[in-house]
């Protein structure tokens, strides 16, 4: 049996085996076992078959064999013969796809010359025109691929064919007429783009244009599981490239596109606008100059009468693209285009502030951004009118509207000419900036506006302020003196002005100062800093208190890199003189807060820059000495734990960026704080130390937090932990000192125990005299120690947790302290400001999952077994754990928890628990509504009960509002038929919440009720 027989036999049964036959033939040809002549001879019989399918498959066989033959097996002569043979078969009408495949395979085995390519193209056009006569997509596709390949590889040959054959192009265009399949269209567009972009298309331009524009707009929607992955966007992109490919299309494209812009379909309009923008960018200045005004007249409507925001944006891009293209050409057309624009905008300015004056501002901003020429022309065209209108305007609102336009123009100008830090798109050209001519006028208007307008004119002053800020940013525009004046003006607003409304102007001025500091740090330091310092007294003993806002503004400046160091230095000096002159505690606290704020803002700088040892010498050491001293250098303010916490935080933020080596000096003095007393005489080692010394534990805690785990502790770690545990048990300790010392236990355990030692780190406390886990000895101080230890361990996900947690859980049913234990769980996973990565703590990425897995399933199990009076403890513990837990961890277990959460809402007096439960229920509704669905009745009833105030349960406003917000989500997330039965009840009950005594709750109630009222309406529609 010959191979072709075998192939045809297998074809219907098993396509794979048929291909294997073809592979075999190819191998035999290569090895010389089969002569090409013989193979073709064998085919003869089938090519002459009556049956079209057989003929087509025979060509398929040939194509497959050819594609499988390795290169260089076939000689040039053989390939030419084959090519002629296959071409001759293209008039068959059957198997055209396979012919194309065979030709493509041949081409891959040896390049063709021009003549051959032209012959192939002509034959195809003669025998298979139009292509749409072949009904199957799979027949047309290979032909298109073949033509595409010819276009790609033999561009010159085809182009010569076009140049020498007058009617070639029209036949070529008609060839693809009527193609509908998206895959084929993708190829057709790419084929046609070549003549569009590269050939001289002359009289065929319109036909060529219509050949692609007929498909505009593309409304194709791919089937749901489309294997080819062609999207409407792919087609749109390619079609748009075609339209934009040659300026010869302009006479057809713009009228046709503008016609379609009147469409009522937003998608069509969007397509039109995008196509216009890309066409404008490609057609070149000469062509565009002919259409620029027509386009402006059409596009402006999309902006002046916004239908959809994104359409306006597209239209703006279009207008900007026109300006950009024209500015590549001669000045005449550009002027001609811009003149009607500023004329129209000037008209809209006359009745500012309106919707259209706002639109005018948008237009000007977008176009002025394009190039230096455009900016200069627009400024010259707009600003004189704008300032005249401004002077003659009688209403503040109008002046404000005009200045808004002005600010947009300067912003665009900065885009072109740059700011002080970096040049704009025009490069170093600020000398040519037309804005310079209007500088004095602009400055005068905005400065007097900010200075003289009454404080009630918030929006007017805000826009003046913005104008001044932009002017001061514009590269090379203002002198340092001018900028200095602006700074003083801003400064005056910040410091001297009365607070008004939402303080938009004051905040704007502070932020403005920061921005100017970014542009001109030196001017700010010279002009503003002395003024700030003059406003800050050395001491406030004369009763002055206006310093606070000054301090705030000054500290804010620290966020700017270049002035950071100066800000810190000045604040530090101020602090020293304040202490020396016995300033009041509140002033000292304010100064400390400002230093801390400034350091936080510059934290990045501290981390990058290890020279901050300066700050250590200048700030940390003096502060620590003042803290521990007992003589006159110790300010009274330092006798307060909150102040010491501030001191500690300042030291922490500076020390933590140092290396372990640098830190060693502090580590050694962790408890002595450079006071020259022996460590043993001080807390936590000496329980009978002078009570005054207890307070400094707060500072020690912050220092301990700042240390790397490689530093050496000032004593043995076991000794330190047990000393701390004993120390915290003392009843006379103040609450902050106790908390701080407990936190030291967490820190030491977390940082300094090795992984293996961590497993047994609690043993000395459990087995020692403290007997931490002895139920009979349990009391609140011991419970605190337990959780302090667990906190440090849990962050490291130690395996010992699986032994420790069950112990603690078992105490939940402790008759006396079960509730206290329950509250402790909230400490474990809550965000913490001391045990953090920045503080070099060891935090395992999965610690939350670990604790959740060890605790929550056990709690749900124990809850079921617990006696009724103990059940609340489990709910409290659960809420404490859920509170700090990301919801994706909770989500897995949430179906187990939902009943517990609902019962938590019935607890009395446990408001934090309720809040946590509502938060989890809210997240559940958002992420996994199906779980809630079957409980919707009890959820709605309980939320309602918690959203309305009544005499028995005094639900706090926060819980009421949270319950209402959760209730608002219910109809959003659950199916209509599930919530509909509750609508009446909810709307009725919520009437009471509308009259809540708290505004926050009322506002939540209004939203909830509005949402539930809609439930019914939605039902009506269906």
């Amino acid at each position, binding site marked *: 049996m010959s191979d072709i027989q075998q192939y045809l036999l297998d074809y219907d049964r098993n396509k794979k085996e048929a291909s294997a036959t073809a592979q075999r033939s190819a191998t035999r040809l290569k090895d010389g076992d089969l002569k090409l002549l013989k193979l073709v001879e064998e085919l003869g019989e089938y090519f002459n078959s009556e049956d079209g399918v057989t003929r087509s498959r025979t060509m398929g066989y040939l194509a497959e064999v050819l594609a499988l033959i390795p290169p260089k097996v076939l000689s040039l002569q053989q390939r030419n013969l084959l090519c002629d043979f296959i071409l001759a078969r293209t008039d068959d009408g059957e198997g055209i796809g396979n012919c194309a495949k065979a030709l493509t395979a041949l081409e891959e085995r040896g390049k063709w010359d021009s003549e051959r390519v032209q012959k192939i193209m002509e034959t195809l056009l003669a025998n298979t025109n139009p292509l749409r006569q072949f009904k199957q997509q799979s027949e047309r596709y290979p032909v298109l691929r073949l033509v595409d390949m010819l276009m790609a590889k033999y561009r010159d040959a085809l182009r010569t064919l076009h140049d020498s054959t007058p009617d070639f192009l029209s036949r070529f265009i008609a060839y693809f007429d009527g193609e509908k399949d998206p895959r084929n269209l993708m190829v057709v567009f790419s084929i046609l783009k070549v003549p569009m972009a590269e050939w001289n298309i002359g009289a065929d331009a319109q036909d060529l244009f219509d050949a692609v524009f007929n498909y505009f707009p593309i409304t194709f929607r791919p089937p749901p599981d489309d294997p080819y992955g062609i999207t409407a966007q792919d087609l749109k992109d390619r079609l748009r490239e075609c339209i934009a490919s040659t300026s010869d299309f302009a006479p057809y494209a713009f009228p046709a596109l503008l016609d379609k812009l009147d469409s009522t379909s937003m998608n069509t309009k969007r397509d039109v606008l995008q196509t216009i923008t890309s066409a404008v960018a490609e057609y070149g200045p000469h062509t565009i100059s002919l259409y620029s005004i027509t386009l402006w007249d059409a596009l402006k409507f999309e902006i002046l009468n916004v239908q959809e925001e994104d359409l306006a944006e597209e239209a703006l891009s279009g207008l900007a693209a026109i300006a950009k293209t024209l500015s590549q050409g001669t000045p005449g057309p550009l002027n001609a285009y811009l003149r009607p624009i500023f004329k129209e905008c000037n008209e809209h300015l006359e009745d500012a502030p309106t919707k259209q004056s706002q639109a005018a501002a948008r237009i000007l901003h977008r176009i002025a951004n394009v190039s230096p020429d455009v900016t200069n022309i627009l400024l010259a065209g707009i600003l004189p009118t704008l300032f005249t209108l401004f002077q003659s305007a009688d209403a503040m609102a109008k002046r404000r509207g005009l200045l808004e336009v002005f600010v947009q123009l300067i912003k665009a100008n900065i885009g072109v000419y740059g700011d002080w830090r970096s040049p704009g798109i025009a490069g170093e050209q600020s000398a040519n900036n037309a804005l310079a001519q209007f500088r004095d006028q602009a400055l005068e208007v905005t400065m007097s506006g900010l200075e003289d307008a009454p404080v009630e004119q918030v*929006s007017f002053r805000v826009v003046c302020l913005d104008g001044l800020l932009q002017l001061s940013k514009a590269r090379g525009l203002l002198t340092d003196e001018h900028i200095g004046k602006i700074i003083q003006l801003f400064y005056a607003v910040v410091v001297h002005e009365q607070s008004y409304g939402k303080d938009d102007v*004051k905040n704007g001025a502070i932020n403005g100062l920061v921005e100017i500091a970014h542009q001109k740090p030196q001017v700010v330091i010279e002009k503003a800093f002395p003024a700030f310092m003059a406003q800050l007294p050395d001491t406030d003993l004369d009763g002055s208190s206006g310093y606070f806002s000054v*301090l705030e503004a000054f500290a804010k400046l620290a966020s700017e890199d270049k002035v950071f160091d100066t800000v810190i230095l000045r604040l530090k000096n101020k602090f020293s003189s304040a202490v020396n002159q016995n300033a009041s505690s509140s002033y000292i606290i304010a100064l400390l807060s400002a230093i801390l704020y400034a350091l936080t803002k510059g934290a990045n700088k501290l981390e990058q820059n290890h020279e901050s040892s300066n700050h250590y010498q200048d700030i940390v050491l003096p502060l620590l000495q003042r803290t521990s001293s007992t003589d006159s250098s110790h300010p009274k303010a330092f006798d307060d734990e909150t102040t010491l916490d501030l001191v500690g935080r300042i030291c922490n933020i500076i020390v933590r960026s140092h290396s372990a080596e640098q830190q060693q000096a502090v580590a050694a003095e962790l408890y002595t704080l450079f006071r020259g007393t022996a460590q043993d005489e001080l807390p936590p080692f000496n329980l009978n130390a002078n009570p005054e010394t207890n307070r400094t534990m707060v500072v020690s805690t912050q220092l301990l937090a700042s240390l790397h785990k490689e530093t050496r502790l000032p004593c043995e770690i076991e000794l330190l932990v047990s000393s701390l545990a004993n120390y915290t048990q003392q009843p006379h300790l103040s609450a902050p000192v106790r908390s701080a010392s407990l936190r030291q236990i967490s820190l030491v355990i977390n940082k300094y125990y090795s992984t293996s030692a961590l497993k047994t780190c609690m043993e000395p406390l459990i087995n020692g005299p403290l007997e931490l886990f002895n139920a009979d000895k349990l009391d609140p101080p011991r419970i605190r120690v337990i959780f302090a230890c667990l906190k440090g361990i849990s962050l490291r996900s130690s395996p010992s947790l699986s032994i420790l947690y069950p112990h603690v859980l078992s105490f939940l049913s402790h008759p006396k302290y079960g509730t206290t234990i329950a509250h402790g769980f909230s400490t474990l996973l809550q965000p913490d400001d001391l045990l953090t990565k920045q503080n070099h703590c060891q935090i395992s990425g999965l610690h939350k999952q670990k604790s959740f897995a060890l605790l929550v399933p056990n709690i749900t199990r124990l809850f079921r077994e617990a006696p009724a009076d103990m059940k609340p403890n489990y709910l409290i513990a659960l809420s404490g754990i859920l509170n700090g837990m990301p919801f994706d961890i909770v989500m897995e277990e949430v179906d187990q928890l939902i009943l517990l959460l609902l019962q938590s809402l019935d607890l009395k*007096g446990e408001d*934090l628990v309720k809040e946590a439960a509502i938060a989890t229920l809210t997240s559940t509704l958002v992420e996994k509504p199906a779980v809630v669905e079957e409980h919707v009745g009890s959820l709605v009833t309980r939320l309602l009960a918690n959203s309305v105030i009544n005499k028995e349960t005094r639900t706090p406003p926060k819980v009421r509002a949270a319950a209402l917000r959760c209730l608002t989500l219910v109809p959003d997330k659950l199916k209509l038929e599930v919530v509909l039965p509750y609508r009446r009840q909810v709307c009725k009950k919520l009437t009471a919440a509308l009259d809540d005594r708290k505004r926050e709750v009322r506002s939540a109630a209004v939203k909830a009720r509005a949402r539930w009222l809609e439930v019914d309406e939605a039902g009506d529609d269906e």
Partner: protein
Amino acid sequence: MDLDKQNANPTILNPSDLPSRRRETQVKRRDDGGTGLFDDLIPPYNYLNDPFDQAISSSDSDDDAVEQIDEQEVYDLISSISDPEHPLSLGSLAVVNLPDIHIQPPTSPHSCISTVVVEITPTITHCSLATVIGLGVRVRLEQALPPRFRVDVRIKKGTHSTDEAVNKQLGDKERVAAALENGTLMGVLRKMLSTCE
């Protein structure tokens, strides 16, 4: 909804000029003149708070202070309604204004019924949508205020060519109820109210 725009180019107020509730609590607390910049320095969950004590003292003590419903609150309820013609709020178009909202206390000591009077200012005097806007304001307030308030919405005198006729329509309970049965009208209203905060 394709209404021909009656006023295509209305005047727009800037958001920072719209009346808003001054954060009184904050202003009161900050008698030092600061803006509270340093308040966030120490996180609220800072370690100095003892979780074991917190639970006991958590019920807010200032829950007793009653915040009455005032004109500003009514303004906030209705100023975010959108205009049927423009994607702009009634507040920014100055259709509703704070000075035109009045809450009248109960007329007699035995009654608990207060009245909210809202006067709206159409953007142009012949605006046929004034009735729709009035209806929208009315519906919003009836949904959002407790039942002890009576709602009275009217067109501000002299701002509309047929203000009396419109007022009659808005004041007529039965006509309002009938209007709300109209599906198309409800559709327009729903769209207007969908931007309410």
